[in-house]
């Protein structure tokens, strides 16, 4: 538990730096984790193929919200091509914890939303974060 609820995760959950919406934005996508009702929306502004500004909004468990905050922080300045290459390991590295299969879904929701938005998909699928 001390691992799972590391201070950094509780901190990002309680005091996220990137919570909010961007208006106008170039990319916006939202999805739910039906299992626990986590909801994440991510808005991006894109300049010259690179993420210039990013925010997330939503509600859910500490893992889903902290991972969204960490993810959004990490993609600012990244090219969309690099964002497309991100996978589950990048999220686990950001969180710095090991997760069981159920909580992994919470952690990966933000990446799924981000990639579905960047790819311009109609619907987010688990295949995006495998």
């Amino acid at each position, binding site marked *: 538990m001390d691992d799972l*609820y590391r201070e950094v995760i509780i901190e990002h959950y309680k005091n996220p730096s990137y919570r909010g919406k961007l208006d106008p934005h170039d990319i916006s996508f939202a999805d739910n984790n039906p299992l*626990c*009702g986590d909801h994440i929306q991510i808005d991006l502004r894109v300049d010259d193929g690179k993420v210039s500004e990013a925010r997330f909004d939503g509600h*859910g468990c*500490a*893992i889903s919200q902290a991972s969204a905050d960490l993810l959004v922080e990490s993609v600012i300045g990244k090219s969309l091509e690099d964002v497309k290459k991100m996978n589950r390991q990048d999220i686990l590295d950001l969180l710095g914890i090991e997760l069981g299969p159920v909580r992994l879904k919470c952690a990966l929701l933000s990446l799924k939303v981000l990639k579905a938005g960047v790819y311009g998909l109609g619907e987010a699928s688990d295949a995006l974060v495998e």
Partner: protein
Amino acid sequence: MSLDVSRIRQDFPILNREVRPGVKVVYLDSTATSQKPLSVIEAMNDFYRRSNANIHRGVHVLAEESTAMYEQAREKIAKFINAPSARQVIYTRNTTESINLVAYTWARANLKRGDLVILTEMEHHSNLVPWHMLAAERGIQLEFIPVTDDGLLDLGTYKSLLARTPKLVSFTHMSNVLGTINPAADIIRRAHDAGAVTVLDAAQSVPHLKVDVQQLDVDFMAFSAHKMLGPTGIGALYGKTALLEAMPPFLGGGDMIKEVKLRSFRPNELPYKFEAGTPAIAEAVGFGAAVDYLNSIGMETIAAHEHEITEYALERLEEIPGLKVFGPTADKKGGVASFTFDGVHPHDVAQILDQDGIAIRAGHHCAQPLHEKFGIPATSRASFYLYSTKDEVDKLIEGIYKVKKVFG
């Protein structure tokens, strides 16, 4: 008669399990599925070691033995719910399949566009989605008995819905989230007065209360073995004989037929008409053993024990600042306590409790519309059964204080 919990716990090997070194499981998730006593595990084990064969038609010893065991279990189950005849107990996979059986056979033969079906806002998805599917296919109308803020059905609104002459009223006997025990006999009587057929989702009531289908006068009743100390993969549908006989069959295949020609078939008699293909035979035997076990303790004794634990749990939970329990007071509910805590997401609550071996459930518990009604995405749910103890409730309370510490 009070129940000897420590003796009962010896019958459930899993309750001795350490989920982490030195950490014993505190199982507070019986509403999702119950644990199994040794007698159930051994009945199924013995069946495979001694008797296993396919049932019906076989003339060898093993087939005859297996058939007898399968049918004896049906008789035990029928007696347990006071069904007039074992022919009225149809084996299914679970409560969900039992409700779907009614939706696919009785409802498709009897409901047409515009017909009204009454459900409630506290239904499990298994008593919502089959009717959504039928509404999309047939254009039937759905109306819902509202849930009040204290977790009870608004029977005044039910009365006015009945004036619209519904064809069917399908509702849960005990809410799997709120624990509310609904006044089933009264709801059924009023439905009958309005000319409607009734379906009772008894998944949570049959395991915990004495349920008598004749006293309730219910037309169909669905329940699952795995929530009442039996195995997964088997459940039952009870139905009134006249209704079952008039209904078309459900799945087609072996065993559900009397005669098959190349281009036609004649369905078998009850209950086999609704049991196509090789059924869950060992599971039926386990189901029967579970009924034996419950009878050996007595449903009144079990209900009284659960009431005592639930009352204690609600009292202790309500002491905790920032914790809100949903549903009615202990006298109107079964052994379920669903709660929210101080803005901490239920998944985080459940995860932290798991570190101390405390198994609760977090989420919408397959009742999303009910959670929406209360304006919350999810709850944490602790639930109790005949093997639950006050000591386990104390561990739950300690665990919740730990959650508070982690989230500061």
